[in-house]
């Protein structure tokens, strides 16, 4: 066996991750060497490493370079799902980086560490979504959690930022302990931490007789506490409005996209992978969670007066819709999972776009309350129109990305004949129209005597345009986005062996 070649090819296969790790360390060292905290080299280097990793993520698409699905030491899965989440999280990190450069000036002195952590948190999301082993899943999960606690509490002089970090930490510690207990049950039942091996044990019809089978259901319930916490599903969502409100807004932006993606990726891998045999049981449980999430998220959002809190509850409700895709997934064709991924992608553009608008407004006026948005159409027409399109996308109205996502999710639900779930989804969507369009009403129809025009910094405008184009393009010309996601039938491969090289 020629081990040297093995190394090289394995390193090539996980190039984006290596690049991100190296980037985090380099930025940290460069920050120490630079005297100036606002030096443009810091975000520049960070962006360079992210772009490099993003380009490297497309290597498997090059013919001839195609990396066949497999795992690295049974820990790191390399399949369509991993590639999708690589591109997904790197895109969102790049957008968040652009926001950070504007937002962070004057708010903190530790800018270099922030950029370094941004690279590390990106890495952790990729690791979590590629993890193919319970131990790896837990480690990546903790990596992600610890980095996000620190980033939420970044503004050390701000009481609310501290409070947010504390709440996030306490909820996170408990939920990850419960999740770990669930994982230990799975290991106890099957004697393996590898997802494919666990699935093989449960697929054996003898496990029904021994009684191990039901242990898988218990483990699913316990692990859902951890996954639900990351995604902010309803019984585990209490941290999210406080954390979203108190955290620096770029961090909130990332929190609403990155960890959610990681949570769904792990759910897809663990539930459809390891617990594929118990599909009926966990789908029933998730269907209840989805209904609860949509109802509570949307109803609570009605009463919000702060924009960041509104978006927090809205993102809780959106997680409920995304979860519906998983509930309705049929393992034979995986259309439900594809709907989840499409919805996540639509949500990425829409939500980051909305947060850009919020950051721009916060930078210009220092306020995040909805009432202060009145008359925005006269103060900054482009900005207001963009927000309308983002709200329509969250609602799922064409021609926006959200429509495509909702269309596929509801299609999967109807196909699975879960009519009650579909009706609840529709009804709560109608409810959400009230609070989304209420902001539009405030922006358009409530007068303001002093019509000072608002000016946005250049990076914010750039991100706004990118997300706007993404939101519209995904509905008008969805082919490249669907190509990125790949064929639904081979989205999640049962990965037993190692990579063939």
């Amino acid at each position: 066996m020629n081990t040297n070649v093995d190394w090289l090819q394995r390193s090539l296969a996980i190039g984006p991750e290596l690049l991100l790790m190296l980037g985090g360390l380099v930025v940290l060292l460069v920050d120490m060497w630079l005297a100036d905290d606002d030096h443009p080299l810091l975000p520049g280097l960070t962006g360079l490493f992210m772009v490099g990793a993003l380009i490297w993520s497309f290597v498997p698409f090059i013919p001839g370079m195609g990396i066949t699905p497999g795992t690295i030491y049974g820990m790191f899965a390399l399949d369509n799902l991993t590639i999708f989440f690589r591109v997904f999280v790197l895109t969102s990190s790049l957008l968040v980086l652009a926001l950070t450069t504007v937002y962070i000036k004057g708010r903190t002195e530790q800018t270099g560490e922030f950029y370094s952590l941004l690279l590390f948190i990106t890495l952790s999301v990729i690791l979590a979504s590629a993890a193919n082993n319970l131990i790896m899943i837990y480690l990546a999960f903790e990596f992600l959690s610890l980095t996000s606690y620190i980033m939420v509490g970044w503004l050390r002089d701000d009481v609310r930022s501290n409070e947010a970090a504390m709440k996030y930490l306490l909820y996170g510690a408990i939920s990850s302990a419960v999740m770990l207990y669930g994982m230990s049950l799975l290991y106890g039942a099957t004697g393996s931490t590898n997802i494919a091996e666990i699935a093989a044990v449960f697929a054996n019809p003898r496990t029904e007789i021994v009684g191990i089978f039901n242990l898988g259901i218990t483990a699913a319930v316990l692990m859902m506490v951890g996954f639900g916490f990351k995604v902010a599903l309803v019984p585990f969502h209490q941290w999210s409005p406080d954390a979203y409100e108190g955290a620096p807004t770029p961090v909130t932006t990332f929190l609403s996209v990155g960890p959610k993606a990681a949570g769904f990726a792990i759910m897809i891998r663990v539930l459809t992978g390891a617990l594929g045999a118990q599909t009926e049981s966990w789908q029933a449980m998730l269907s209840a969670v989805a209904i609860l999430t949509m109802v509570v998220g949307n109803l609570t959002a009605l009463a919000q007066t702060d924009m960041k809190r509104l978006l927090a509850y809205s993102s809780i409700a959106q997680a409920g819709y995304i979860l519906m895709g998983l509930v309705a997934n049929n393992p034979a064709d995986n259309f439900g999972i594809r709907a989840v991924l499409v919805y996540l992608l639509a949500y990425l553009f829409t939500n980051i776009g909305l947060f850009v608008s919020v950051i721009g407004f916060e930078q210009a006026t220092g306020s995040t309350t909805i009432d202060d948005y009145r008359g925005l159409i006269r103060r900054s027409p482009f900005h207001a129109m963009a927000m309308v399109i983002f709200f329509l996308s969250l609602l799922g109205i064409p021609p926006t990305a959200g429509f495509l996502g909702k269309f596929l999710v509801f299609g999967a639900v109807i196909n699975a004949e879960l009519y009650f779930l579909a009706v609840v989804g529709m009804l709560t969507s109608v409810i959400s129209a009230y609070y989304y369009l209420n902001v539009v009403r405030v922006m358009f129809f409530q007068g303001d005597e002093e019509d000072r025009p608002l000016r946005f910094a250049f990076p914010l405008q750039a991100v706004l345009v990118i997300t706007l184009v993404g939101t519209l393009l995904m509905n008008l010309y969805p082919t490249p986005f669907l190509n990125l996601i790949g064929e639904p039938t081979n989205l999640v491969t049962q990965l037993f062996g190692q990579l063939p090289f």
Partner: protein
Amino acid sequence: MNPYIAIGLLLLLSTGLALIIVLLGAVLGPNNPNERKLEPYESGMVPVGEAMQRLPIRFYLIATLFIVFDIEVIFLFPWALIFRKLGIFGLVEMAVFLLILLVGYIYIWQKGALEWD
């Protein structure tokens, strides 16, 4: 017979037994409270001072840093034991690991976390 009946019986019996033991102890045992018994146990010594003291936060910083580099050493021992089996691969892996920790070390040094004042 439903197999769950056995579990129900076990539940009842164990709860009942626990209750009986606690109740018997409370009813039959001698009850003689005094102030000494309420004091926190300090290995038989008379407790000195308050438990809620203010400590300089530097202790925590040093403790955290110590743990990080302590674990580094712990990782080195098993690696050294199977070094021959791992071969050149293990050497490179450990070099990467130590390099990352070295960056951390330089970082805390430069940030002045090792200075006491």
